[in-house]
């Protein structure tokens, strides 16, 4: 829309359910989004809103049972990878789609050297001989800014600090030059100064390598700094999506608005009292038939309890929101408009 490229990744109507003792958990409900080449899509939302599950469902990383992808389409490289066989999926993972996880402390295998772990995808996907793979691994470590890379290949993860481990994770994800990199809260566990290092690194790598990135985070500040486009999730759904400036300048969903107001800033004005989103995250017990945010929403209305709002285009191009409330209009979006303006990513 903004730009004419065909998306590298196009997710439509993804639904993921966990079967647990306490019943089904509808963790992802009809999530749709797309990712264009070279773009950085930020995903925000509170804990449990389904960010990680969405991304992991894409390439079959969820343990099944209990997880079950109930429906939808994930178009990647011209085909629906939800229908791909396990072997095909495996060839995608690491090769075409790289993954970085939140906790660098536990995401690396403690008993293998860092070198071994970086070389693994190289040898598996690129068929490299050990020597070649080692050279490439050293290059990668160098690329992510670890000094003395060749020597450090022989070290174990615990010999690295948290920030360096996250760099190792990034090096590993980049090993096969994937088209898409999914980073699931890669800096949440890190200190601010280290986070700043990583953010710089990623920006830099994007410039050099130009892959498309999905960046999951809680931290709106991080998003503001690096994302091109932002997707806000709540209760297993996408509630708002917009180019980054548009979202911060003109948030349309009450949740997004509240979210923006709860975080204090180190710069600018200091609010005398913090805004609070009262209440608790929603239960995901059943497929939603009503707006999941309605209990915590100051704009809630009867309709919100009856009908789960569809995503509709608002404001700037590429900006859509799933809410019955319309700050521009008469307070409520006209019923007719929604069905027409439904967006799919």
């Amino acid at each position, binding site marked *: 829309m903004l730009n004419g490229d065909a998306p590298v990744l196009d997710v439509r109507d993804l639904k993921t359910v966990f079967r647990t003792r306490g019943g089904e958990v509808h963790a992802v409900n009809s999530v749709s989004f797309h990712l264009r080449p070279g773009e950085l899509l930020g995903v925000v939302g509170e804990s449990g809103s389904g960010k990680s599950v969405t991304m992991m469902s894409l390439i079959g*990383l969820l343990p099944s049972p209990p997880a079950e992808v109930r429906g939808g389409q994930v178009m990647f490289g011209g085909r629906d990878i939800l229908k791909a066989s396990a072997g095909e999926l495996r060839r995608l993972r*690491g090769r075409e789609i790289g*993954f970085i996880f939140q906790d660098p402390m536990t*995401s690396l295998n*403690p008993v293998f050297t860092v070198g071994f772990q970086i070389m693994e*995808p190289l040898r598996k996907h690129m068929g490299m001989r050990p020597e070649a793979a080692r050279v490439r691994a050293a290059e990668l470590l160098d690329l992510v800014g670890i000094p003395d890379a060749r020597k450090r290949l022989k070290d174990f993860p615990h010999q690295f600090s948290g920030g360096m481990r996250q760099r190792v994770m990034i090096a590993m994800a980049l090993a096969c030059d994937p088209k898409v990199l999914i980073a699931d809260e890669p800096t949440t566990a890190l200190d601010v100064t280290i986070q700043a290092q990583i953010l710089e690194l990623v920006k830099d790598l994007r410039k050099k390598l130009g892959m498309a990135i999905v960046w999951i985070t809680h931290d709106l500040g991080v998003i503001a700094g690096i994302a091109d486009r932002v997707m806000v999730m709540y209760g297993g759904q996408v509630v708002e999506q917009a180019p980054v400036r548009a979202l911060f300048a003109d948030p349309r969903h009450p949740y997004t608005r509240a979210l923006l107001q709860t975080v204090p800033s180190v710069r600018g004005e200091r609010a005398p009292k913090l805004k609070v989103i009262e209440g608790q995250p929603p239960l995901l017990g059943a497929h939603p038939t009503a707006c999941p945010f309605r209990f915590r929403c100051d704009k809630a209305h009867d309709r919100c309890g009856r009908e789960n709002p569809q995503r509709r285009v608002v404001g700037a191009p590429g900006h859509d929101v799933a809410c019955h409330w319309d700050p521009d209009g008469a307070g409520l979006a006209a019923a007719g408009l929604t069905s027409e303006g439904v967006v799919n990513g």
Partner: protein
Amino acid sequence: MLNFTIRRLVMAVPTVIIISLLIFLLLDLAPGDPTAQLPLTIPLEVRDEIRLALGLGDPVIVRYFKWLQMMLVNEPLHALEQVTGWNVAPDTQRILSWQSRSPVGDIIAQRIPQTLWVVGMGYLFGILIALPIGIISAYKQYSWFDQLGTFIAMVGFSVPVFFTGVVLILVFSVWLGWFPSMYDTTLRVTDWDSFMRQVRQMVLPVSVLALFNAAQISRFMRASMLDNLNMDYVRTARAKGLRERTVVMVHVLRNSMIPVVTVIALGVPSVFSGAIITETIFRVNGLGALLINAIYANDIPMIQTLTFIFAVLIVLFNLIADVIYGILDPRIRYD
């Protein structure tokens, strides 16, 4: 690491000395008498002489220090002499068994091969069976394989060895005649034929022991695998596009083996102590049979020496287990 090992070794010395004193006193206190095995026709006066000849006239503490000296100095020297042929232990006194009046060291050395063959193999096979069962059970938790494996493991653990042993003998030696019911310790493996005979005579005792050991180890393996299967790094490995086999057999297994290997190491002393009941049933005259025989015959020097060696092995393998842990797990640093 080396430092840690040495420190623990040094600290083990007082432990071992205290253990030796305790064992000595305990056995000395124990009722029973080496002459009890003799026919009742031998008069008591003669029995008294026999007891004196066995050295029972000395006070306990004197006997303890004599024994300690023989155990810690003379016996090792003799062993050295035997191995190297150097004349380092000329005519020093050795610990003599009351039963056979021969040095206990020699008898123990004689028993080690069959103990290692049978009990060791039982342990080894137990491990070899247990690991795959544990791995598959954990990977396919709550599958029929897991349930079956759990059941068999528990049966293996809960049925006394002397029961399974007798049943096996009845079925395979008496009814089917496939395997001998008695182990022949004099068999020398020189050719294929004798090798096959050796294998055949080992089948029954080894399987009884393997079942029992496998039962326990597979439980550990399963638990350890389960702990590791949900770790974050497994997800990372999958995200790299590794084959499921590689994920489980390389990443998960290596981590899961860390506690299991130490458990296995802790079990090794029991290999050396022999499997008393199995050895008795299949007439494998190993160290276990030696011990129980000595207990029946009140052959106190033999019991003392065996239990002491066993104690040393336990202390040693506790240490080895710690060291292995440190080696396998790069995160552990002992200093």
